Each structure stands twice: as structure tokens, then as C-alpha cells.
């Protein structure tokens, strides 16, 4: 999808865009994420109404969308925390629906919950997850991880005594400890100060082979990602490389998409 098209909404639904894009540009296989027709029902309501997604190694995708659009659900699906009601999902070359456990060790997730135990120290939290993920030379890596996120001397502090921003950084460190091939970030900016956001940007740019990042903030999406997809009403309504977009373009498209589905 090039930026030259006057009205991106004229293009129908996300899957048509993806299919078009896929046909036009030959891509190396295997991809990091390959999702087709992901549907998720909670009871009788559809949270996701058919999403197609493709992500290659080294790519960074930002998911933006209004509340309730399904960003968190989609990320949970990609994290294999939740099974889709229909559709297929290949992660890192593995059928994630048949063998989710095979791929979990290579995913790093930062979610709305920090997954940190408040009554354990920062170091203890990292060591626990390190053990669960089979991380080698654990003490070394824990120390390195803490240093990277700027909590070098705070390993012995209980997580409950850390500030929200510090907890968020620790959550990042937790996600990176086992050097994942795919990073899934749900509003990772939450609670982060200026420095924290810089840290996050550096991580997204350098540390992870592939990233899917959900965010409210369109500026962050443009700054951090190679491609942006607008999720609305459980579908990917629009997808474009960030290089072709200005913030104003994106804002306009976003408003258009969000109101169309309202």
C-alpha cells in the first residue's frame, strides 16, 4: 500500500491488503508470524473478526486502534495465551495451534499485568523466570538484565517497593531475559518516564529480532515501528509502512477508520 492512494478506506479489509502485499513483494520464508483469519469469540461476541497478519524477522509492527478494537486479544493470541476460535497461526515456523508449547520459549511478552511477584525481589523474579525459560548462566544474565534497564543496584528490592515505571522496566527485562525471537508488547509505555521510553525505543530498535507493539499513541507507533496496522472492530482495517506516512496522514486515516466502525 503506497501513500499515494487518496482514500485508504477505499481498500476493503485488512486481509485483502495483506494478500495484495504478499503477492507483490517476494518475501523470504519462513516468517516470524503468519496468521490467517484469526477469529476469537468470548461467548457469542466476536472480539476478533478475522485478522490476517504477517511479520518477518527484523520487522517491527505497531498495532493501533481504539479501545475494544481487539489489540490485546490479538496480542494474547500471538502469545499463545489464548486459542483462537478459528483461523490459523504459524509462529516461528511452528503451528502455534497444534504445538503452542514448542514456541513459547522464544516469545517475550510485556502485557498490561507486569507478571511480577510483588513480594519477591527484582532479582528473584528474574531468576524464577530465567529458570522457567531455561536460561543459561542465570546470575550473570540477571545482573546484566537489571543493568540494561537501569535497575542495576536494585536487584534486592521487593517489586512492591519499586515505582510503576521501575516495575515496567523490570517487566521489559523479564521479557528479554531469554533472548526471544519475537517480542509482543502491549502498551509498553505505561508508566515509563522520558528515560524509560528511550530505553524502550532502544530495545525495540536493537534487541529484538521481531516486534509487535500495541499502542494508543500514534506518534510512538510511527517512531518505533516499520509498519503500522489499524485494528478496529476486531479487524485490521488498514496497514501501511511507516516510512510512507506522516503523523497527520495517520491521524486522519485513524479517525476515518474508527468512525466508520463506530
Amino acid at each position, binding site marked *: 500500500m503506497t501513500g499515494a492512494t487518496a482514500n485508504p478506506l477505499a481498500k476493503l479489509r485488512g486481509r485483502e491488503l495483506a494478500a495484495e502485499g504478499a503477492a507483490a513483494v517476494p518475501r523470504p520464508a519462513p516468517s516470524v508470524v503468519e496468521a490467517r483469519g484469526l477469529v476469537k469469540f468470548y461467548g457469542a461476541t466476536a472480539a476478533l*473478526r478475522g485478522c490476517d497478519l504477517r511479520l518477518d524477522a527484523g520487522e517491527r509492527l505497531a498495532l493501533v486502534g481504539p479501545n475494544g478494537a481487539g489489540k490485546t486479544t490479538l496480542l494474547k493470541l500471538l502469545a499463545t495465551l489464548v*486459542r483462537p476460535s478459528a483461523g490459523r497461526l504459524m509462529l516461528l515456523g511452528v503451528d502455534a495451534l497444534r504445538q503452542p508449547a514448542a514456541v513459547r520459549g522464544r516469545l517475550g511478552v510485556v502485557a498490561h499485568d507486569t507478571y511480577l511477584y510483588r513480594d519477591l525481589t527484582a532479582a528473584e523474579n528474574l531468576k524464577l523466570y530465567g529458570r522457567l525459560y531455561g536460561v543459561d548462566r542465570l546470575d550473570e544474565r540477571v545482573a546484566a538484565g537489571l543493568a540494561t534497564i537501569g535497575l542495576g543496584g536494585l536487584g534486592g528490592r521487593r517489586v512492591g517497593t519499586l515505582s510503576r515505571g521501575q516495575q515496567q522496566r523490570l517487566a521489559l527485562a523479564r521479557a528479554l531475559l531469554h533472548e526471544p525471537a519475537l517480542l509482543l508488547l502491549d502498551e509498553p509505555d505505561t508508566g515509563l518516564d522520558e528515560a524509560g521510553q528511550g530505553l524502550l525505543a532502544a530495545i525495540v530498535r536493537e534487541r529484538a529480532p521481531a516486534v509487535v507493539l500495541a499502542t494508543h499513541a500514534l506518534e510512538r507507533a510511527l517512531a518505533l515501528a516499520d509498519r503500522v496496522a489499524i485494528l478496529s472492530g476486531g479487524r485490521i482495517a488498514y496497514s501501511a509502512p511507516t516510512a510512507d506516512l506522516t503523523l497527520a496522514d495517520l491521524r486522519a486515516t485513524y479517525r476515518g477508520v474508527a468512525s466508520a466502525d463506530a
Partner: protein
Amino acid sequence: MSSILTREPIAAPAGRDARRFSAGFGKQDRVLNVLFVLTVVAMLAALYAIFVYAPTERVMGHVQRIFYVHVSLAWLSYLAFLVVFVASIVYLWRRDERWDAAARASAEIGVVFTTLFIISGSLWGRPVWGTWWTWDARLTTTAILWFIYVAYLMLRAYVPDMPRAARYAAVLGIVGFVDVPIIHMSVVWWRTLHPEPTVARLDSSPLLPPEMLATLVVASVAFGLLYVTLMIVRVRLERARDEVRYLQQALSLRGE
């Protein structure tokens, strides 16, 4: 965009092709009608056998006739819960909601049969032993079973969200049934410590007179047919509910 009902699911946690289930017109109905007639006939035959054909028991008199109903209900209860067990296993294996519908239906029918079994035991015990309840081994075991399967139904009530409810209930259906022989053993051992008046012991009366045996068989067959008929009706009702849900999901997919 194709509807979820006709889309071929590759990973299919939801039930397959709901359209294959028919709401009950045409061919399916013939089976049900025949079964219904057979059940009525069998029940009438059983009534005749119990009240006319079977000889009056020496000790307990006419009250003993409740034995035929009581024991039949016992077998059918266990059968119903065996069906829940098997259906639960297959459901967890295949994730096909039709098996869960069978489990749901059988659990409900099983609870009804078990309740009737307990009540009939109580009714029998009163004139014979003077009490409404006795901690007889079989009565006690079945009472515990009643609790397990009532818990099954309550679990489904507390978790309306499918297919979660199906999975949770399947776990209970499996663990509950596997626990049954152990419950039985423990209660029997317990009762041998402090024996109580026993209400019904098919095993303790080694030789039933042939007329009584025949009556028991007729009664069991009649209740068995009743179970099958009820199951068919019930499963259809459950599948109709499932179908409503699938349709709601399809609507939700098309967009609000």
C-alpha cells in the same frame, strides 16, 4: 466474507459443522417416534410385570415391588454417568461440542434417575425398617454420586461461557466417575464396620426366583428405553442451544 459456520476450521476448538445437526423434522423424527412408542409399551409391560406378574415377597409383602424400580434406576444412573465419563473423554480429545451435549444431557438425566433412586430407597426403607434413611452401602454411595453430578450441573450453571464450561465439566465428569469405584469400596468397608439395615441387596440374595428376575429385566429394559428416548430429546435441545450460539457468533462476525 464466509460465515464461521461454513468455514473449515483448521484448529477447531468449537464444535464442527453445526448444520449437520437437524432440529428434528423428517427422518430423525421417525426414530424418535418409534422409540417413544417402544418406551410406552415397555413401561406398560413393566407395570404389568411388577404389579401382576411378579410374586409377592414373603417377608416384606407388596412393598417389595418397589425393588424393581429401585434397582433399575440404580443401573440406569450408573449407565448415565458412564456415558458422561465417556463423552467427557471424547470431548476433551476431539473438542467436538456434540459430545459435550451428550455429556450435559446424560448428567441431567442421571441426576433425575439418581434422585428417584434415593427417594424410592427411602420410601421402601420406611415401612420395612421404620426409618426414612439408612446409611446402607448402596444408598450412601449413590447419594455421594448425586452430589458429584449435582456439582457437575452447578459448575455448568456457574460457567456459562462455552467452550470453557465444557472443558471444566469434562474434567469433573472424568475425575468423578473414576472416583466412583473408590467411593464404593470405602463405603462398603465402612459399612462392614458398623452394619446397618440394608435396603436392597441383589448380591445377597443369590437366587432370585425366575419370575422376579424376569420382572427385573423387563423393568430395566423399560427404564433403559426411557433413558435413550430422553437422551435423544435432550441432546437435540442442547444442540439447538448450541446452534443459537453459533448463529449469534456468525452475526457478531458480520459486524454490529
